[in-house]
């Protein structure tokens, strides 16, 4: 594929996917704790369906979208021409090896490199799609290590509502339902904060975003 056809088709596909997501879900972004600014951030969201980063991505203004990269598992996405095209050309994701044992591959390093380039990241701290009845799966520790290594980056909790009803596990066609993406107040990792405390605080922030019904819009 010539370079320019790749760029054009990836842009067109991105716009098409984003338009489809907004048409089906009528997604309303709620910037509760912060606004859509170009500060370097890591957006930490709950993960219920493949549409998650499409929805966050579509909720951002185009200037922000261009600098925000989702983090995706290479075990799922690095297969087949279609998936690779979507995850790399359209979404410009950071692919990490989720099954890396200690010392093999370096998922934190890949994310750190993306941050050092100036991108913001979208990360799902649950590590995988939540297909159970629990509201939020236990959070993985990767975000703690990343925040330790890059403490100046803002951490913004994000809550995506209703997407698990639009496209539940095992279904292919989405049902039109209204979804909301709520962006909470940014947090940072304290200097002497322990891993357990930090993950607890993050969990609480995400859950309380999910429970907030009538926020005062900024």
């Amino acid at each position, binding site marked *: 594929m010539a370079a320019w056809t790749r760029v054009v088709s990836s842009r067109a596909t991105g716009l098409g996917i984003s338009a489809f997501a907004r048409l089906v879900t*009528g997604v309303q972004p709620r910037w509760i704790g912060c606004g859509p600014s170009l500060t370097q951030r890591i957006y930490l969201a709950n993960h219920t369906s493949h549409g998650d980063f499409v929805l966050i991505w579509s909720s951002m203004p185009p200037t922000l979208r261009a600098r925000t990269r989702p983090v995706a598992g290479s075990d799922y996405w690095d297969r087949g021409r279609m998936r690779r095209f979507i995850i790399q050309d359209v979404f410009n994701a950071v692919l990490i090896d989720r099954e890396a044992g200690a010392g093999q591959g370096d998922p934190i390093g890949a994310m750190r490199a993306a941050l050092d380039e100036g991108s913001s990241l979208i990360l799902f701290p649950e590590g995988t799609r939540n297909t159970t009845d629990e509201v939020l799966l236990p959070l993985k520790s990767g975000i703690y290590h990343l925040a330790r290594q890059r403490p100046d980056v803002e951490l913004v909790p994000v809550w995506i509502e209703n997407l698990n009803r639009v496209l539940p596990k095992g*279904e292919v*066609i989405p*049902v*039109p339902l*209204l979804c909301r993406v709520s962006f909470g107040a940014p947090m940072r990792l304290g200097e002497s904060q322990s891993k357990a405390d930090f993950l607890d605080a993050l969990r609480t922030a995400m859950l309380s975003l999910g429970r907030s019904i009538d926020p005062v819009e900024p």
Partner: protein
Amino acid sequence: MTSADPLRNQTLMLFAGLGVVLLVASGIGLALKWRIGFGTPHATIDNLNARIKSWWLLIAVIGGAIAIGKTGTVVLFGFASMLALREFVTISPTRRGDHKALLMAFAVVLPAQYLLVWIEWYGMFTILIPVYAFLFLPIISAL
């Protein structure tokens, strides 16, 4: 076409009347905003102007659909129904097993209903949802 003429005249007069009312309203909104200064944010006046703008949009969309004719109006109502159904289903307590039935409601029943309206099969479009949809969708849900 003689029977269509008075109807057309009445419709045009209706929209002309609406246009005049909206112009007066816009004028008042503009005057109010001018008095306090265009750059000054004022919750009530800004709200009023936003509402008047949405009325303009509403009248324009409905007027456009009526101007296109029957097809335009049916498409507009079909689209509005889809939006309303989506809002309703969002706040209804649904289960995982309802997914296929919900899909059928949006993708089959809704277009079928408006197709029947378009071809003016009165007998069928009045009973499609209360009889057939209410019978078959729960069956699909239970399968």
